[in-house]
């Protein structure tokens, strides 16, 4: 075994193989930096080139890309408050406040070094466990997986900010949104309005970008000027590295957590960062800084999300079951290379496995190093006037959103989720809770149904189920214990409640009533299904409705609206900022333009108009930026072989690519 291990390393350390690894790492860097584009888009770019490549080079290239994305996606999370990919959502909570306080360098250094630790740890787990992981993975049946989804949902307790009722309601709303599409138990379609698009549910990437990226871009635009006040990264490089060293045990703990959750097939990696974040909050004595710029809130998710990839390779290699979307494409790549994953990967084909492990470790080291080297350059973006950056950001997220199903519907869904995100943020309904509910919705329902069908309600007495239940209860208790006064234990994900107390309450009440109406609608729709497909939406909506009523009650009878009183516009109005609706209208105008004239022409028109009106640039300046943007998107589309969503114009006239 050891010989195979080192033979694999020696084989990888040739110029050809290393340069392919580097190609993967560099592409992963670029794809990771662009918000919304994760491993799926990156691997799709590489897939057409695999034909005819030798196995080691190809594996090195693919793994290089996969490994570096959870490192490089940290840039936008920290610098702009926009999650670079689904792996770095939790990093935003503390990373972005740190950047706003002029400590971007420290946050980035801590994030990259934590990523390095996590990534290498993940590779270690993979090499240690690949030979013995089969029984371990097999011990997680649907009952255990259901309990794990409950464990994930228990993180809502930590992320609810000043009002637990709002947290529960937001999570329930997420659960209801997640139930759009086919019911896992029966295949009945719920809340899809007869649309083929909604049949598959709202794509996760669209929800994540709508909830997190759109409101942040709008807020930054309203703030005017640049992201960073003085536009410097600060000098915190050493501080950041020291932070990670000081919290090395935390980092390793979270890496372990990430590797385990990544290795359990069926859970998916999308909540790993939130679980790690919840973990660090729960286990910290002093929680006063979380959500306002605590470096531990950066280290925890970043350690976990890199380790997840190593863990996620276990089920992919041993069972041929992809743990995530990017692993599915990696699997396709392996099959195209003539490698069939299965038990042999821990026996006959151990050399392939070790090649993958070494590539993973090397890529993590290279990726972290490159990110640190590139940081000052990329950070300079935060010194550019945001009105110039914003259209590029909107372009990238629109492009990323429409990777989901490659239709105009993706953009419409992005607009709708963006609107919801703006409202949730404004009224202090925790968006992380919504997202956790959304991600775990189908999983929780599927696994509960399967557990009952496979084992009957007796599944609850299985030892591993009881163990996870105990962990969940401890996690709930840890999250809620200090919720008494105004002190610690409340991570305010949407800004500080104290500053957002409004004198005028009706907008909040109106929004809460709207949410209540949504829950009512979910119940009404849910009841139209057979029992098995109705019970989950009705249950979630009932809990959410009750929580919303609690919010309304506090607003109505609490002193000054009570703890539920939260309206970010109260603060914004005091400081005289522009209306958010103006920028929402820009986004709507962009989507409308695409619906009329297709993506490329709509994008060009949006760019010119926005740059002229909002950024007040000169015509030549606007033209150059527009050309650059369109050129970039067209080049990317060419390599991905995309046809953009067409509009009315494309229905009437037959245009050549890329206008088609």
């Amino acid at each position, binding site marked *: 075994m050891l010989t195979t291990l080192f033979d694999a390393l020696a084989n990888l350390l040739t110029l050809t193989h290393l340069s392919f690894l580097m190609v993967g790492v560099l592409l992963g860097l670029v794809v990771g930096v662009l918000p919304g584009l994760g491993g799926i888009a990156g691997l799709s770019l590489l*897939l057409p080139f695999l034909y005819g490549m030798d196995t080691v080079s190809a594996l090195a290239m693919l793994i290089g890309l996969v490994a570096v994305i959870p490192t490089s996606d940290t840039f936008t999370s920290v610098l702009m408050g926009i999650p670079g990919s689904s792996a770095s959502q939790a990093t935003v909570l503390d990373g972005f406040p740190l950047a706003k306080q002029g400590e971007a360098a420290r946050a980035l250094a801590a994030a990259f070094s934590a990523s390095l630790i996590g990534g290498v740890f993940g590779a270690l787990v993979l090499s240690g466990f690949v030979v013995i992981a089969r029984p371990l993975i097999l011990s997680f049946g649907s009952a255990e997986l259901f309990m794990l989804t409950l464990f994930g949902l228990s993180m809502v307790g930590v992320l609810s900010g000043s009002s637990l009722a709002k947290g529960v309601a937001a999570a329930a709303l997420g659960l209801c949104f997640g139930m759009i599409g086919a019911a896992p138990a029966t*295949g009945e379609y719920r809340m899809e309005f007869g649309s083929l698009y909604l049949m598959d549910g709202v794509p996760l990437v669209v929800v994540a970008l709508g909830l997190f990226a759109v409101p942040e871009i709008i807020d930054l635009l309203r703030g005017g000027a640049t992201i960073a006040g003085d536009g410097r990264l600060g000098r915190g490089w050493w501080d950041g590295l020291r932070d990670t060293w000081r919290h090395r045990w935390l980092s390793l703990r979270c890496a372990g957590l990430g590797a385990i959750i990544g290795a359990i097939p069926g859970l998916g990696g999308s909540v790993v960062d939130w679980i790690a974040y919840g973990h660090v909050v729960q286990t910290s004595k002093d929680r006063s800084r979380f959500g306002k710029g605590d470096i531990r809130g950066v280290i925890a998710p970043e350690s976990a999300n890199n380790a997840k990839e190593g863990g996620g390779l276990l089920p992919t290699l041993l069972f041929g079951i992809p743990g995530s979307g990017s692993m599915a494409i990696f699997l396709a790549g392996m099959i195209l290379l003539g490698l*069939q994953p299965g038990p042999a990967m821990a026996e006959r084909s151990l050399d392939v496995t070790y090649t993958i492990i070494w590539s993973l470790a090397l890529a993590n080291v290279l990726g972290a190093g490159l990110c640190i080297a590139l940081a000052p350059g990329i950070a300079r973006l935060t010194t550019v006037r945001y009105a110039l950056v914003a259209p590029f950001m909107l372009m990238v997220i629109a492009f990323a959103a429409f990777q989901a199903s490659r239709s105009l519907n993706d953009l419409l869904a992005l607009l709708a989720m963006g609107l919801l995100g703006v409202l949730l943020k404004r009224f202090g309904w925790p968006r992380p809770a919504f997202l956790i509910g959304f991600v775990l919705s189908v999983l929780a329902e599927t696994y509960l149904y399967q557990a009952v069908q496979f084992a009957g309600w007796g599944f609850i007495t299985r030892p591993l189920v009881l163990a996870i239940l105990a962990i969940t209860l401890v996690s709930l208790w840890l999250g809620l214990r200090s919720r008494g006064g105004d002190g610690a234990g409340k991570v305010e994900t949407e800004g500080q409640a104290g500053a957002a107390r409004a004198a005028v309450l009706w907008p909040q009440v109106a929004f809460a009533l709207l949410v209540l109406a949504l829950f009512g609608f979910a119940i009404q729709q849910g009841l139209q299904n057979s029992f098995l497909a109705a019970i989950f939406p009705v249950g979630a909506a009932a809990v959410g409705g009750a929580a919303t009523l609690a919010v309304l009650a506090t607003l109505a009878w609490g002193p000054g609206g009570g703890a539920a009183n939260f309206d970010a516009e109260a603060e914004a109005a005091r400081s005289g900022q522009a209306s958010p609706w103006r920028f929402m209208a820009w986004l709507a105008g962009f989507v409308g333009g695409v619906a009329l004239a297709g993506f490329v022409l709509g994008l060009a028109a949006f760019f010119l108009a926005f740059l002229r009106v909002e950024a007040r640039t000169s015509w030549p300046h606007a033209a150059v930026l527009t050309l650059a943007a369109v050129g970039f998107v067209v080049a990317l589309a060419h390599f991905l*072989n995309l046809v953009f969503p067409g509009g009315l114009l494309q229905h009437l006239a037959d245009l050549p690519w890329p206008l088609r």
Partner: protein
Amino acid sequence: MKLSRRGLLAATAAAGLGGRATPAAAQSNVSFAGRTVEWVIPFAVGGGSDVWARFLAPYLSRHLPGRPTVVIRNVPGGGSITGTNEFVARARPDGLSIIGTSGSTQVPYLLGDPRVRYDYRKLIPVLVSPTGGVVYLPARLGVANASELGKLRGQQLVYASQGPTSLDIVPMLAFLVLGLDVRHVFGLRGRGEGRLAFERGEATIDYQTTSAYLTNVVPLVRAGNAVPIFSWGVLDRDGNVQRDPTFPDLPHFVEAYEMMHGRQPSGTEFNAYLAFFGSGFAAQKPVLLPEGTPRPIVAAYRKAFEDAVADPELQAGKGEVLGEYEQAVGDGIERLYEVATTIDLEARNWVRNHLATNHNVRF
């Protein structure tokens, strides 16, 4: 039945080419030099159909006249209905747009799903890729082969299914025809998860497609934990079920039925099974040209796939992607395609009724 005149002409043209087409003559006036052929896959990147198309694309490019660039365009969504609907509505019959569908596209068509806007009778097949699979049981049930399936009477088996209207409708119908009492647990994502459920002991009957069976189930069989019972089999050129070439020693479904019941299967249930079996396995992945594609272009494509499949490089590299299955090209294509894409009204109604009463499926 609604058949446009153009479609009818194209279909007869295509059918006429089946036997004694002279590809050389047809090829002389068809050239795709310098053009790009767009191969639509109505599934996401990384799925089985995507891998299949990406594997075949370079060979198609090499053997089409004029060596055009062949690119894969993924149009995912709606369980492949979206992309196929779009193709049928938009693609021009100029040979520059082709589509590769799969059993998941054929099943809703056979069921008469109202969202389906494509008609397989109008599309023109130029290649049909079959696949296969093996049904197996846990060794602890004590069933050594298909003739002992009767031992399971009075015992409920559990099958981990992807859903009542997914490709897992084939095993569902097969178990019904055999008379096995099987409880279907839905909501699994892929057969891989089903195999995991089997290995954990949660599911007590399972099948895997050939490549997954060879790599992941054969070790279980060797270890004495699983027993193969029958393969789905393949269809020959006349549309008869034959043994799977990968598993020549294993009875196919029809043989297994005979071993269990001592007579040939027949009747509405069996007819329904045959249609869905054809769609799901024997003719799982057809490559299709749009309605009304001119005859010489169809001929050029059929010849190109014939040559591509004969390409020694393809044969050497096909591995798990195509398996040992004979790719249907040229002659064999029409009958095979017909079996997989037609179902008689009685059988369709029977299946729809079964799904509606037992699994709450609404049409």
